[in-house]
């Protein structure tokens, strides 16, 4: 598997650390209720198809990336810097 880091280019997946769903970007406000916090910390989908995952280019530039990919075809549809996603929205 290869991931194209927006900073470093296409690299083998061994350079990356996998965190999980990009849900982790959407941290609730501190005063959010227990259900919101529970969903943020624990609840994850397990989709067959498109996923948005967070990967960390640990053996590269240190960038956190949002990788959109397909768990069936293994195709990677897009890679963006997590910091850009947050800045943009």
């Amino acid at each position, binding site marked *: *598997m*290869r991931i194209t880091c927006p900073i470093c280019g296409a690299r*083998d997946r061994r350079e990356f*650390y996998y*965190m999980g769903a990009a849900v*982790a*970007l959407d*941290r*609730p406000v*501190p005063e*959010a209720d*227990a259900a919101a*916090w529970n969903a*943020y*910390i*624990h609840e994850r989908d397990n989709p067959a198809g498109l996923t948005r995952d*967070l990967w*960390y280019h*640990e053996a590269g530039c*240190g*960038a*956190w990336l949002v990788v959109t990919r397909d768990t069936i075809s*293994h*195709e*990677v549809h897009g890679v963006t*810097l*997590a*910091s850009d996603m*947050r*800045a943009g929205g």
Partner: protein
Amino acid sequence: MRFAQGGLIDREAPVEFSFDGRSYRGFAGDTLASALLANDIRLMGRSFKYHRPRGPLTAGSEEPNALVTLGEGPGQEPNARATTCEVHDGLVARSQNRWPGLGFDLLGVNDWAAPFLGAGFYYKTFMWPKSFWERLYEPLIRRAAGLGSLSGVASAETCDKAFAHCDLLVIGAGPAGLMAALAAARAGADVILADEDTRPGGALLRESGEVAGQPGAHWAVQVSEELAGMDNVRIMCRTSVTGVYDHGTYAALERAAPATVRREGAATETFWRIVARRTVLAAGALERPVAFRDNDRPGVMLAGAVRAYANRWAVRPGRAVAVFGNNDSAHRTARDLMARGVHVCALVDARHGARTDLDLPFFPGAVVSRAHGGRRLEAVDIRMPGRSLRLRADCLAISGGWNPSVHLTCHLGARPVWDADLVAFLPGAGAVPGLDVAGAASGVFSTAGCLESGWHAGMAAARALDLKPVEAAIPKAEDGHYDIVPLWAVPGKGRAWVDFQNDVTVKDVSQAAQENFRSVEHMKRYTTQGMAPDQGKNSNVVALAVLADATRDGIPETGTTTFRPPFTPVSIAAMGAGAQGMGFAPRRLTTSHRVSLRRGAPMLEVGLWYRPSHYPRVGEATWRESCDREARMVRESVGITDVSTLGKIDIQGPDAARFLDFVYTNRFTTLAEGRVRYGLMLREDGHVMDDGTTARLGPEHYLMTTTTAAAGQVLRHLEFVHQCLCPHMDLRLISVTEQWAQFAVAGPRASALLEEVLQGPLDLPFMGCRAVSMGPVGARLFRISFSGEQGYEIAVPSRYGEGLFSRLVDRAEALGGGAYGMEALNVLRIEKGFITHAEIHGRVTAFDIGMAGMISKDKDCIGKAAAARPGLLGAEREQLVGLRPVKSGAAILAGAHLFEEQAEAISRHDQGYVTSTCHSPALGDTLALGFLRNGRARHGEVVRMVEHLQGVETLCRVSDPLAFDPAGGRMRD
């Protein structure tokens, strides 16, 4: 026997080798199989289950029969295929799975017992009593059935691993692969051309036809020379592409030529990871046999293999050769043998109405129904409508048709597609993104067709790579016809082999169907067809056709089993190249490592780091004596230890302090310059991630320390929080763990020592920090303590680490102290109740360790919301406590569990557990830390420690974790 001329062997370079203890001669260019056949040796192995005598069936990597053990001693290689093993001077090969010898094998008795040993025999027979399976049945079966074995001793031979990138990977250097490589390379693509054979050419090496007006093998040399002369081409012979992975990643195994290994001491095998933007699969096709009675006799070979032995290696395959097939391949073999003057006693063609121009006994519409002979073929039965005939023959060439090598196209999950005209499976369209299939692998079976198909695939790859293809003429070659009728198994009595390697017969496959193992995947597992080194390369299609016949399903409906990597066997040694012994994990060494070794310190592995356990002195017999002395030394004078392994993260920027407020539970915006503060870090789920100190070095400059174990995790976490949760904060982070060497100087005489080294007053309050210098070297001094004594840590750029450590230890020794290791460091911190990852192991909260008060009420931080959840605080939680034996000196063991004094020691009554333990010289007793339910309210109570593994029980008194100098005066003043 060898023909007087011809072949691609070097008759000027004879070689001598041995097989089963006897010496033979061959030529450079021979395989072990061709050289043995040239010496009239046909019997090369015994079959897996019935111990039937076997000779080579094929001339390639798909060989099921001629498996041998190469070499002797630690590096012996079992299950090597004689058909691909290059002979060289001094080669030692042995046959396998026979006792006492290959010619007379006592376990051949299995063959007589065959009526009882069919499919499912083991499952049905060795059922009772159950306990006999592991102790008796399995060892016996493994002894009786099997292949070669490893030596069991570590080998000095080396394997290697390597990585390559290219625009185009061409798999297979036959006519299609050579043309594909040529087309793409001329357009400027970076090309890797990989082929498992010792030289490019593929099928051209075995066929007699011409390409561009010259023998095919000559043309292959000419093209590969052109390719080899181009800077953008790398030809990798002896390299089998074994697996296809996502996004253009391919695994390949390269075997070094024997001569290279001997001359240069090169790695015997190299495991490659190749990343290719485009790929052309030109892996050719594999011929399949026909099942008929006793078709496994030595001397029965595939028709293409017989051509290979005759044409490529100039081996006369027999005195009287019969040829049998259902397609044109059989005719080609008869023609080539006759051209060599070999007596072809019969050409048997299953096709009714087949014709030949050859002057030989021709039997159209007939089949071979039985082979006769024992250790070599003696005669064949030919059956035709209305009559049959027995002919003497010592070699039978058979062809049941050709299977395109679709294996690699299926590695990402695609299924091959049945082609009724070719009577074969073809690669599915778009099976592997970026991969095109050319030549025989795509079902093109003529040389002219392969050249053309390869050329077009190379041109298409060039265009896909945005390169400009260069048009050129495709060389002329034979444009033969391929006509075939289905023929899988010749009906009749007796056993007809489908899978030679696993001793699976037509009857076994039919029986599987009868017993309702009708799915091809079930049949495979029930009969073991298609397992072992050849993975069914010769037998899969025949087996599923026989199954389809038995179940009355069609072949396409029956389908194939799943093709998985590797295409050919890959030794674990090659896949794990470089990872034996010290190569298993990287070693991280501190700058003081050599000094510690010189002082005799044994090393402990702490993650990837190596840290000194203790520094033994004359007269100290055990680590405990050294440890006790070192701990006392720190309490009484001064000790030095290397703390460089702690993670150091440099944090700078206008928002650095706000950021620290967010990642730590406590405040850092209030930390003054020149001060250090202890910080506690949570995971978002409310559990403790790590702890450490952070120093404010400048207005916008902080230095965080982490524990050794969590350094990587904390850096990753900080980057996550910054980039993913608060990218608007203006700051930068970087690990400086490797850049600074840092040493703790601890004990009542620490100040005195440092004042001497720094040549001036230290002038530093507890939890202060400042820049200092030692001559021209800038250093950092922190007043922090992990020992409970007056303590400092001094940091210098790593290149000065060794020198500073030596100097500090020398000075400490002059003051009655010295270096101390991990064991004493651990004792000192347990005495003080300081936690490490033994305590903050991932399941404890700030509340559990008594630090709930450190979660600031008036700011947010990571983990704050979750830390307040019900269940993560309260009396039911197991809380950090100190433990001491009621009876002085009794053992408390880490990992042991705690129970109420009278309760039965079962999990339902579990009250907690011990995390850290030591003998405290300062207190003169055993001392431990642990977690106990509602522990903070139970100081003074007695609990029972039970360690079930060693059967140790100790009554312990619960106490505050802080056991030594509770007021902290020694550390602060």
